[in-house]
């Protein structure tokens, strides 16, 4: 699968409370959840975001709560991939588990609005606007397998319920 999209760039320590405020998390209605994604950080997020776009942050992206509603809100809002220098560990696992692709690389030189291209599972990220590529941090085998399966539910179904 090839992911193509424009960059919405944010800073360091983007926490789960601004990705999806706690007051909206108690729901199984994913489109309603998605309608509030990032609203406390960027009130124009939903207008700016086009389907498949890349949300790019700095260090410690997704710090805070265990709420899986955070990556779910991004995914169902239309985010194609999340890119950061580092991720908070629960958010990292949650993205992989729900099938929201994520990438760890140096994001300092990626600019808001840049066009990115990424083949899921590949070890480089292409910046079509700046005509350059970034080396990605390698993930463990288990993470790659779950990510390529599209998440932990599919992975377990394909694997007869075995981890």
């Amino acid at each position, binding site marked *: 699968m090839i992911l193509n999209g424009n960059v919405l760039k944010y800073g360091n*320590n983007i*926490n789960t*409370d*601004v990705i999806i*405020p*706690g*007051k909206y*998390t*108690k*729901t*199984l209605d994913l489109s309603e959840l998605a309608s509030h994604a990032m609203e*406390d*950080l960027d009130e124009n997020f939903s207008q700016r975001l086009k389907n498949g776009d890349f949300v790019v942050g700095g*260090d*410690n992206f997704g*710090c*805070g*709560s*265990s*709420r*899986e*509603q955070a990556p*779910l809100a991004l995914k169902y809002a239309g985010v194609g991939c999340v890119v950061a220098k*580092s991720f*908070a*560990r*629960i958010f990292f*696992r*949650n993205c992989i*588990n*729900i099938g929201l692709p994520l990438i760890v690389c140096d994001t300092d030189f990626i600019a808001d609005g840049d066009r990115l291209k990424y083949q899921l599972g590949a070890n480089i990220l292409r910046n079509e606007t700046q005509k350059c590529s970034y080396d990605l941090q390698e993930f*463990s*085998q*288990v993470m790659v397998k779950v990510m390529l399966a599209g*998440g*932990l*539910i599919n992975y*377990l*179904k394909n694997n007869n*319920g*075995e*981890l």
Partner: protein
Amino acid sequence: MAKTLAEKILSKHSGKDLTAGDYAVCAVDFMLATDATAPIAIKSWREMGGEQISHPEKMVLVLDHATPCPNQKIAALHSLMRSFAAEHAIKLYEVGDGVCHQLVLEDRLVKAGELVLGADSHTCTYGALGAMSCGVGATDLAATMLTGKSWFRVPETIRIDLTGNFAPHVYAKDVILHIVGQLGSNGALYKSVEFYGEILDELELSSKATLCNMAVEMGAKNCFICDATTNISSDHDALFSETIQIDLSTIAPMVAKPHTVDNVEQVQSLEKTIINQGFIGSCTNGSLADLKIAANILSGGKIASGVRLLVSPASKKILIAAIKDGTIEILLDAGATLLTPGCGPCVGTHNGIPGDGENVISSTNRNFTGRMGNNKANVYLASPATVAASVLAGWITSSGEANL
């Protein structure tokens, strides 16, 4: 080979000889989810083909995040949890029983050396009992409900040695705020944290729980208290990624300023910051000891005009004990409003949402933008003692001069 606690516990639970950086599938001893996470966990588990819970006796569900239920939609989620718990013989803690982490501590649901997963980021609290307990998301927990296992990356370990004694008016909350401020919100990212020091033997469980509870605010995977009670420690020549010494006598009352937990300063430097609301409660600082410390400061006084004080004991057992010993009466006499034991105000679901531009001083664990339900409010984090002294004064102040 010498091992850290995380290496020992994950090795034992995987049947493999593991060191930091390895990946393994491990058997899980206990798991927990709340009304903020269980509905998605149940949905994911069903989509995985779940029919029977792998070990229902090793699981609890807790209604604590939105309790008593504030609206019809959440009522449906609570009903889902109740019927799921009944169907699968899972223990369910009801509305008003308390905050999940307090319940695990007071009912001793986990033991030292056990491996625990909770679908709540403050699951790291049970390191106070010596368990390796990690927060996970709902679908991760669903996989454990299905298989009894989960995959783990073995973390590196930061060792923190506490020396010296607490200065007057300084509590575990000030210590962990100081440490989060020093290490930063990613200072322990993916890591296990181990606390050592003779002082730990003198602390109540609630203070040790406060230390572990906020380890996640610097990114930690889990946190251990290594004292005579937990009777656990790393091998003496184990490899730590970092060893930190903290001289407790140098720590003053601390506050985390808006809008990040590592934005920490001494209370002294924030004196006279006007506040509109105080909150004492949560999995971090809602213990009986915390309520008594606050009552001691508020006894005979009245909170400042124009200031609200909300108090939510962390469990029903704490509430009953605090009624019996007169603590609740002192708090109410001083002007406090008593709330149901639960998470509500901390996580901004309902109860005590601050107004635009208001300042809140809170004994909780996070002060992110919008955390308490209003993205135009400011949350300052402090000890229950500092919250109590501040609502009396009407501005941020500690309960006495620290003179450091």
